[in-house]
């Protein structure tokens, strides 16, 4: 998935420089260009190993500590870090479609985060989106990382969907009826090839079923509480028709093979409440946001070095939850608090049922935003992360502290204030 897109991206950067040099009036045929710069000074009290702990956090998805290395975009070293630099091009293709492209650069590599088109002129409240995009499930999933209220992904999303949330290739169809109550219904047919869920195992011994392998359904509703208050409630369901996991271990001699396949489903509820600022420059604004997800998977061991294991069932359930609040404490200053937890239910049943243990975290974030184009954030987190020891069959929790001093700068086209 990760290709070296650097040449394309560099030419796009040059192109953006060229456009910026033009006077303002004649750029309407060019896509809007924005660049997000993001970096952080980071430290923790366990010798910089907290991201490793988070990677090994006990959960029912994926292998046991042998996942795709290098996927941990959130992984920072102690000291200064350049995080993802995002380049976004967007605009109207013609009267019928809008298109959007986001490329993220990190560690000298470029990755296509989103590339999609969306209809504009379908009648009666219908819209179709096609390409690679952030899924419409949940609330936080559709938010771009630069608009997050915290420097990192919450544990519920991290453990069930991965650092970027559910982002996949396919089609989204939404319908918004012309009712008094805002209602949005959506269905997505996705390829099912992403970080946590789907047929992502690259092995000759396990064939991938034809896509789309991941289907989502979501409904959102929002009553009108006037100009100063807004509430949105949502329900989501994800069905993964073909979910694969690799529990093998190539470090062992001889190599241990264990490939699993089956299906998985997730349902979730989300709620967000916002109060518009009463003072100027964001003072007095309130945002409350919470989501809960429950994952159920049922797999069969398809290939294993221990032939007796083949055909055995592996079932598991895991849930995740977070709640966070952000308050505009002063003009251009906001204070956020977050509690996130995963694995309140964290059961995996192979020969016998084991509880993998829960992980939770408390986070405080103080953000200063001189304008809507830049922000600086000081974030402190206290985490209790469980790790499952397969030999002993028990899980143990380790506590640590993390501190981030993050900057997030947006250059170029005026970003939109998406709800």
């Amino acid at each position, binding site marked *: 998935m990760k290709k070296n897109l650097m040449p394309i991206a560099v030419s796009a950067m040059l192109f953006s420089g060229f456009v910026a040099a033009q*006077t*303002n*009036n004649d750029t309407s045929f060019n896509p809007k260009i924005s660049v997000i710069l993001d970096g952080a000074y980071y430290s923790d009290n366990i010798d910089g190993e907290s991201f490793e702990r988070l990677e090994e956090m006990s959960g029912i998805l994926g292998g046991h500590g042998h996942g795709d290395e290098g996927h941990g975009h959130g992984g920072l070293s102690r000291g200064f870090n350049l995080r993802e630099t995002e380049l976004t091009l967007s605009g109207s293709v013609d*009267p019928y479609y*809008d298109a959007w492209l986001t490329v993220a650069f990190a560690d000298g590599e470029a990755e296509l985060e989103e590339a999609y088109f*969306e209809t*504009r*002129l*379908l*009648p*009666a*409240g*219908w*819209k179709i989106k096609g390409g690679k995009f952030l899924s419409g499930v949940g609330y936080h999933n559709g938010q771009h990382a630069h608009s997050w209220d915290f420097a990192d992904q919450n544990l519920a999303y991290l453990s069930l969907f991965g650092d970027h949330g559910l982002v996949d290739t396919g089609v989204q169809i*939404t319908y*918004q009826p*012309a*009712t*008094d*109550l*805002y209602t*949005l219904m959506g269905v997505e047919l996705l390829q099912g090839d992403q970080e946590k869920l789907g047929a992502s195992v690259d092995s000759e011994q396990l064939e991938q079923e034809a896509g789309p392998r991941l289907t989502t359904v979501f409904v*959102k509703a*929002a*009553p*009108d*509480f006037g*100009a100063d208050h*807004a509430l*949105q409630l949502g329900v989501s369901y994800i069905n993964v028709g073909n979910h694969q996991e690799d529990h093998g271990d190539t470090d062992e001699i001889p190599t241990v093979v264990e490939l699993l396949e089956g299906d998985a489903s997730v349902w979730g509820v989300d709620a967000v409440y*916002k109060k*518009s*600022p*009463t*003072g*100027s*420059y*964001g*003072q007095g604004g309130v945002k409350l946001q919470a989501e809960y997800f429950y994952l159920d998977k049922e797999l069969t061991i398809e290939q294993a070095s221990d032939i007796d294991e083949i055909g055995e069932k592996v079932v598991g359930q895991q849930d995740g939850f977070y709640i966070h609040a952000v308050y505009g404490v002063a*003009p*251009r200053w906001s204070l956020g608090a977050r509690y996130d937890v995963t694995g309140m239910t964290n059961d995996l049943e192979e020969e016998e049922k084991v509880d993998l243990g829960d992980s939770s975290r408390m986070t405080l974030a103080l953000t200063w935003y*001189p*304008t*809507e*184009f830049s922000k600086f954030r000081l974030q402190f987190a206290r985490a209790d992360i469980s790790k499952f020891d397969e030999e002993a069959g028990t899980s143990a929790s380790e506590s640590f502290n993390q501190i981030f001093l993050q900057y997030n700068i947006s250059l170029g086209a*005026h*970003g*939109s*204030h*998406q*709800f």
Partner: protein
Amino acid sequence: MLKRLLIIIFPLFLFAEESLAELQVFACEPELESLVQELGGELVTTYVATHAKQDVHHIQARPSLINRVRRADLVLCTGASLEVGWLPVLLQKGANPKVQKEPGLFLAANQVERLDVGQKADRSQGDVHPEGNPHVMLDPRKVLPIAELLTQRLGLLDPRHQETYQANFERFKQRWLNAITRWNELAKPLRGKPVVVHHQSWVYLLNWLGMELVATLEPLPGIPPSTSHLSKLIKQMAQAPAYTIIRSPFADKKGSQWLSKKTGICAIELPFTVGGNSDANDLFGLFDSTIALLINAKSCGGG
């Protein structure tokens, strides 16, 4: 078979979309809602996205607004990038092909000549609008051509009532011209008076009244007043005192009140839009109240 089904279903959709007799108007700001009410009367149902206590630069594209855009026949906004942070999202998420562009979309500031056009699009200069200052509705002379074009638009969207809209406009025009004459007469003493404003949103009003903008409390548009900038203003006011300090209902009171206390110059809150104070209950009240407050501003003792 499919064709027959479509023939049955399609009119149902049309019926659902056309069943509301009145024109549904989504107005971004209260002064535009007031204008379309003058012109549309009983024939329009209006919804206004913002109120006077909100800074229209910073509005969330909340779902209830998306829902109103979904159901609108006409989206009536200021344009010139005033709503750039949220209107594009509403149009994009609203899934309503009628209002994506003209005639279902009417941008008031695009209909008239704007002041401060062609500023360099350079954010180091703060929140600038290269398309020109968007707050055109604060010059009553510009309200009239906007009203006339909006009348034509209403007639285009709802041809059955074209004559009613035209008659409403003629009536409004007469009242408005009389009001302008009255305001001009009242505002004569204000001509040439220097003023300090909180944000660059008053240029059209000052331009109309012939008042002179000598300073802004914000060091740059969209950047809150700083202590060092305010101290500079005190020095400036000591040398050449302004007549008054103006802010809008959504602006932070502290800066203008502090400067007022230090200089003895009256700080006043003008309604800025319809609903900005209890007297500004429509477009006429907006200017009646604005002129009255400006005239009374001398009683603070300053300039």
